[in-house]
């Protein structure tokens, strides 16, 4: 299941690569991947 978090700036962050790619295809936009790790 894809979780969507709507921030105060109205940026909708996807939590699944598949969902992000699907949305990118639907809206003809690119995907921005922000890789991070703890520590």
């Amino acid at each position, binding site marked *: 299941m894809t979780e969507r978090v709507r921030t105060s700036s109205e940026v909708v962050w996807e939590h699944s690569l598949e969902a992000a*790619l699907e949305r990118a295809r639907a809206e003809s936009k690119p995907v921005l991947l922000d890789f991070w790790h703890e520590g």
Partner: protein
Amino acid sequence: MPLKVNSDEEAEVARRFQVRWTPKLLLLDADGMPHYESYGFLPPAEFQAMLRLARAAWLMNGRRMAEARQDLEDLVVATPQSALLPEALYWLGVARSRTRDREGAVQIRAQLKERFPGNIWAVRLPS
């Protein structure tokens, strides 16, 4: 479409895109093909410039050269002090050339060489 990926929890995605260091930002097309990457932290203004440069790269690779050119023209005007300006000037030269503005391409390349003679983006220009 923004997506946060914890490289420890999503090792498969991290492996797919060869993530060794974080933070790492990648701009992909809808087929999952990378078009731009950036490492490390950037202050807000530089981060915005980087996003615009990344979008221009995506447009150029998608052969939307006129749109890329306009984005780069706007970026160069809007961010005259950006550390990313040499890279933006380089790609603007390419975009001008590919939109049949040979004179404009020569002009922007001359500007890049004059303002940033030791910068790698100026070094990359054809002699």
